[in-house]
């Protein structure tokens, strides 16, 4: 897994590539939560995402809730259909705010 963070308007965009699994869950959560601290909102660009495992999904949801508790917006963008599908049938998808493209996501939370 790799995370590249870059500013875009008032938001930060974090492009996540590779797999989010139990093995990288801690790194994923800590990295993004600290990034969130300095931004008005965070767009997770999932275009390059690989596998999102059971533990990965839970980490994502925990991060989402932590961000909301901190009064920050966190949205998902460009989620590949295959990942969206897994998130949907396991009941995770409807818990997130999602956008088709990073541009739309940035525009929405800026």
């Amino acid at each position, binding site marked *: 897994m790799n995370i590249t963070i870059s500013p875009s308007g008032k938001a930060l965009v974090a492009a996540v590539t590779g797999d989010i*699994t*139990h*093995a990288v869950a801690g790194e994923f959560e800590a990295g993004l939560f600290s990034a969130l601290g300095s931004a008005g909102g965070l767009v997770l660009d999932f275009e390059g995402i690989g*596998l999102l*495992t*059971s*533990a990965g*999904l*839970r980490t994502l*949801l925990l991060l989402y809730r932590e961000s909301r508790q901190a009064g920050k917006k966190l949205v998902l963008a460009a989620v590949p259909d295959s990942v969206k*599908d*897994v998130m*949907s*049938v*396991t*009941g*995770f998808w409807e*818990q997130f705010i999602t956008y088709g493209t990073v541009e739309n996501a940035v525009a929405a939370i800026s």
Partner: protein
Amino acid sequence: MSGRIDLYPTFEISGWKVRPGRVRPYGASLVAGGVNFSVFSSTATTCSLVLFDRQSRALMGELQVPDAFKIGDVWSITIFDLDPESFEYGFRMEGPWDPVAGHRFDASKVLLDPYVRSISGRDVWGATPDRDDGFPYRGFVIPEDFDWRGDRPLEIPAGGLVIYEMHVRGFTRHPSSGVPHPGTYAGVVEKIPYLESLGVNCVELLPVFEFDEFEMSEPNPWTGDNKMNYWGYSTVGFFAPKGGYAATGSMGMQADEFKSMVRALHAAGIEVILDVVFNHTCEGDHRGPTISFRGLDNQIYYMLTPEGYYHNFSGCGNSLNCNNPVVRDMVLECLRFWVSEYHIDGFRFDAAAILGRDFSGAVLNNPPLLESVALDPILKKCKLIAEAWDAGGLYLLGKFPNYGRFSEWNGKFRDDLRDFLRGESGRAGLVATRLSGSPDLYEPGGRGPQASINFITCHDGFTLRDLVSYNAKHNDANAEDNRDGCDDNRSWNCGEEGDSGDPEIVALRLRQSKNALLALMVARGTPMMLMGDEMGRTQRGNNNAYCHDNEFNWLDWTLLDREQELFRFTRLVIALRKAHPVLRLGHHPRSDTPGALGFPEVSWHGCRPWEPDWSDDSRIVAALFATATPSGDDVLFYAWNAGHLPAMVELPALPDGLVWRVSANTGCPAPDDAFEPGQGPAIRPGSRFLLGPRSSVLLEVLPG
């Protein structure tokens, strides 16, 4: 303060950092920093934990659990720095091979954990198994947290349930279902709007505990495909949802998908009952494979003969030794688990009579397992339904040890209504008894009508369409020379065996189907219908379709277009049941107890009011049900003419200002065959009612 003071390794075994584990809970569970394992055996001499790489399936390591880690008969170990998503596991037990004494240890086998929460190996339905894999079913650990968003079991009163018995795969596997993930838990969710439109408020799922659809699989010369264990009455793991029913099974996310399905069904007001098989396991008899229980503690888990062979009260090779305290605990723990972790609303216990036997098969007066289940606080509100017989000849219908909690699949309801439907003589009185909730079976034990799960068809036997289309079973496609399956079908083909182009026969079959569905919804007790009966699903006369993963079993959704009339009728009679509390009361109606409008709770009639005909030749049953409720009087008149001639029926007189209104009449073609509650046409007071041949009516009372 955070954390625990005991979560650090104290030993190293084969390079793994470990410490003595926590004995409870049994199985594998996530703990901070690692994974805890706990397994029981009364007789094994050693226990090793075997770890495999989840991706490559290669052996990762094997650790013999030191005796110092053992408390009583339980080995437990915590392993640190073990990524829970990276491994699968099993146990290897050493112990005596002494079949006469009941011991069949085999250290060459890696065994599945009996408490395992998720199992790989059969996670994609129908994927060709690797026959050379010595350990095909492997346990893995899953996060068990789930965001239920306030969901809990619905606890709908039993009388208000309308149960829809269905097979997860069969419900949406057919291409015509149009769902993105055919044949899965996700597919069920896609069809919730359909279930809502039908009006059922409970689905009873054929077995969903992990099983192997390839068990006993062999090429089928009749169909050209393989015979499969399609129904799934052969459990591999009692705590694990079937992976092959999950669209996400290949990712190991079947538990989340299953929970998501339950949450969605509950949000639509639909309960979930599981058909559970605790009478036997998938290990068969002494010739069967050693997968788990046999290799862990054979003489504890199974009922054995004095020679060390397996009692076969299940008809499936072995019998789980349910009243042994250890096994009893496992069953109880399993039920609690599904209720608390999966929010399951109830259970239907397959061949439940076995659960009342002791280790030798003798019938117990006060079976501890059943008592424990009935009185358990976690299970207190969930539905408990017994199939009150077993393959060993024990038949406990009406007498199942119920502790005021268990209801029963009422086989007599099925038989008597089928007989009357086909026009058998001498059944009018029996049908009246069944419509009353079978007080003959349940009143002596102080049980009400909710002890009776009323059904005319279920997965085992003819579908409703086949019940009116076949005189005999046609099971050739099972490749057993038509020997398998029940011969006591009490069916009638309406004049021609199988498909018919004769419009009169087609019309009669439709009418007979409506008669059956109306009687089912009118009868006191809890109605259960079979998936697809509302759209004329056929198995082409096969009454034992256990082995077909094909169109014998898959619900063809194009039937819905062709059978709109039957679907509409079914929907409306379900709505009528829901609209009328008198049909759902929790006691048997009595003819000597006041009901409403001057009528007793139930009164029986014939062609003339108050003159029922209970003679052998009678083909007419007519009942008036009446009760006073806080929201008003509820009075219904129901009449069923099972004879081939029409009958002129004089209706019981109503007080001034009230009239009978037709709410269902199977003698009329649609749309006059059924009406929305309260919307049917009035019958002129004093007029007689023509009840057509093989027809039934339900009348409501409303202001004129």
